[in-house]
């Protein structure tokens, strides 16, 4: 297992470097003038040039990249152009992170809690009305744009029924119940997306495992059905679902950008959008880098868990 972990870590290193290059290049070639965004439309060419020099944007691209990369590997992501002189962008991001983490975690928990039983039931009741209902739910969850579903849910649960607040955020430490009420709708919108994917995968994996010889053998031994399902079918069907969770990290990030904006949640997703509009380069670079690192290391953890769960993987 140790060799497997070391091998996976070594493979992750070039991915991290490559991603840092991609992030830098994408933002470097992005149209627009950072100095103009900082100074505004009345700035003269001389003032713009002075600002570019101050921000280090007049240096060759390679020098800019090496300088940026060198600093980020030391944990220095620079300071924001907009959110206060001398305020490290890492501090700004870390202030927002709890909101996004709570939203993401709630969505995953909700997604699994909803998707897993639905997938199991659909597989066990194949071709029934229940199966059709679950499949329809999964297709709808995947097909429906999250912003649209969000607006509909706000109109239903906040405006029409007055059960939940339409938007905003209250920290858990300040008001636990208020916190959960504010997160319910956004977490549900993100969670439905995850539940749809999980339900579809669990259903198909379950159906595949149900047809295996060892399941037939288990049944022929006279084991009760729930024992067969839980011990022999579900356990094996869940291995690909674990992999899926790693892949869902990326989906969660893109979803949270939209959901945080609609529900006015002060998280990293909304910060990314506003910093992009502001051309706040250090902040955009830092958020993108940290988000991609989150996805990379999330997938690494999943790979390690996968290796732990399935000996064939770590010995391959």
């Amino acid at each position, binding site marked *: 297992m140790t060799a497997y972990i070391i091998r996976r870590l070594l493979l992750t290193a070039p991915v991290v470097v490559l991603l840092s290059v991609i992030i830098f290049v994408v933002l470097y070639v*992005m*149209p*627009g*003038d950072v100095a*103009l*965004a900082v*100074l*505004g*439309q*009345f*700035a*003269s*060419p001389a*003032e713009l040039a002075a600002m570019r020099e101050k921000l280090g944007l007049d240096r060759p691209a390679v020098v800019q990249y090496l300088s940026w990369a060198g600093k980020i590997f030391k944990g220095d992501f620079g300071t924001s152009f*907009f*959110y*206060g*002189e001398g305020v490290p962008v890492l501090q*700004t991001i870390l202030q*927002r992170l709890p909101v996004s983490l709570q939203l993401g975690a709630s969505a995953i928990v909700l997604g699994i809690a909803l998707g897993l039983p639905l997938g199991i039931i659909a597989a066990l009741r194949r*071709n029934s*009305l229940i199966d*059709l209902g679950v*499949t*329809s*739910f999964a*297709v*709808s969850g995947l*097909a*429906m744009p999250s912003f649209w579903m969000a*607006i*509909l*849910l*706000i*109109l*239903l649960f*906040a*405006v*029409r029924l*007055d059960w939940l*607040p*339409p*938007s*905003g*955020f209250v920290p858990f430490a300040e008001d636990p119940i208020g916190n959960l009420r504010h997160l319910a709708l956004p977490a549900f919108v993100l969670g439905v997306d995850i539940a749809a994917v999980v339900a579809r995968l669990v259903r198909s994996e379950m159906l595949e495992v149900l047809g295996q010889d060892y399941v037939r053998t288990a049944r022929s031994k006279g084991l009760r059905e729930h024992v067969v399902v839980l011990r022999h079918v579900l356990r094996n069907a869940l291995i690909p679902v674990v992999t899926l969770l790693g892949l869902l990290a990326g989906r969660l990030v893109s979803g949270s950008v939209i959901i945080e*904006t*609609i*529900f*006015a949640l*002060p998280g990293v997703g*909304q*910060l990314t959008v*506003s910093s992009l*509009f*502001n*051309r706040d380069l250090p902040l955009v670079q830092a958020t993108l880098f940290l988000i991609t690192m989150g996805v990379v290391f999330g997938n690494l953890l999943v790979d390690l868990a996968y290796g732990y769960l399935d000996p064939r993987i770590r010995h391959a």
Partner: protein
Amino acid sequence: MIRWYRHLSATGLIVTILATACGGGAAAPTATATKAVAAVAPTATAVVIPRGGTLTLGMIAVAPPLDPDLSRGSNVWEVTNNVYDLLLHLGEDRQVKPHLLESWDLVDGKDYVFHLRKGVKFHDGTNFNAVAVKAKFDRMIKMGALSRARGYLSEPTGAAVVDEYTLKVTLSTPSAALISFLTTMPGFVYSPAALAAQGGEAMEKPVGAGPFRFVELVLDSHITLERSPDYWEKDAAGQQLPYLDRVRYVMINDPTVRLANLRTGDADASLYMRAPEFPRIAADPNLRLVRAALEDPTVELRIWRGHAPYDNRFNIKALAFAIDREAIAQGLYQGAYLPAKGYITPGQWAYDPDFKGYYLDLALSRGFLTEAGNPTGFKSKIEIGAGDLPGLRVAEAIQSQVAKVGIVLDIETVEAAALTKRTQDGSATLVVSRNVGFGPDPAYLMKQPFHTKGGFNVHLGGAGKPYTTPGYDELIDKAGEPRTTAERTQLYREAQRLIFDWGTNRVPIVYGGESLAHRVGVVGGFSFAPGGLLLLHRVWVDRR
């Protein structure tokens, strides 16, 4: 067995359920809401206005700094307006009223002497006096183009303290408009001691002399202000202003969600209501719409004349006479906005009610195309900032309208920062622009885009080349000097006729204005100052 239900569209099913549940548009008034209206709504006989309470006001996200010279966007001013306070106010009659500046004298036909209000304190306890106002002018002059206020106040070259409450401001050229501009953002005053304490670069935590003092800004979440106990102004009944204890601006970027917050009561009022929402608000008995005067050229076409086809002024006139502004005002804005005629807006004293500007006349348009040498029309493009959906709708409407005379416009959506860069380097062509801004005096909007030395005209004739309309600069320079209002009115109207006859580089499409919706009975006292700034010192809240 035929599994017919397999063919059911699951999406359709869920949509139907949700749509049914959400149907009905405006929510029926609840018992609670109705009771609140009956219990609280102040009548004409009510004298005592309720004091205290917190107002929750929805608005779009505000980006720091909340600095009068460095802030980006008018939404910041909506907040800072209630913190810094203004040197002067503009009354409903569009006349300048004393505020922190009690009176002023014009000296030698050029410079101004300001007489300041005594006994006013900034929120940090320091005195509002001539030293503080001098510091404001000095900083703005030193910052030059970096100061947002400098675009409006280009003439001051220095300020000198005469005594504690008297200040002399020296101008480079005589300016009749300077006083008017002190009624809006350039007239914000702040504590120089607080700025120094914050490092001297930017006012991250605003400290002014306004009715509310700043408490906190949580990015993309909210801003909290609280009543300043030292505020000097009283209402007509002698009650201390402001009435509110606290104001909480909640930042909600999505307009539908902003309105939803209002309907649920999570917000007491919301700024930036859109024209398509007006009928829905009007139909909801719990809500009331408050609109500023329709005085901004809210939507306009900006034209860069350094390259074909707009280097030929007749092509501009052909384009302008092919646009049906009435159809845009009615079709896209449900009649909530007015079709624009001139560049001097109905809210300004120089407004010319008889001026027709450009109007729909296809024969005239074709005539100008012939005069330009392309009688069958021309091909060009119209540029829109990415995500600007209202702007895109205007572009699409114009595209289809001008096609009737053979003008083919391709719509190009450009990322916002990239579009700004194009407008700055002169490579833009034709841009739909919204939220043009308000000038309490025509001097700003009539000078900046059209005068050879105007701040918006730097690249309109090509990269680094302003566009000059023959005879225009002289008229505007004269109109900007201290003269009688009648004389200035005459000069501005003449200047307006000149640029429209010649072919202008800004074609106004509709006049609009700020809007706000609030819950009836729970809050009241809202009104917009001319220019769309929302003053909250007379707003009350009553939750009994």
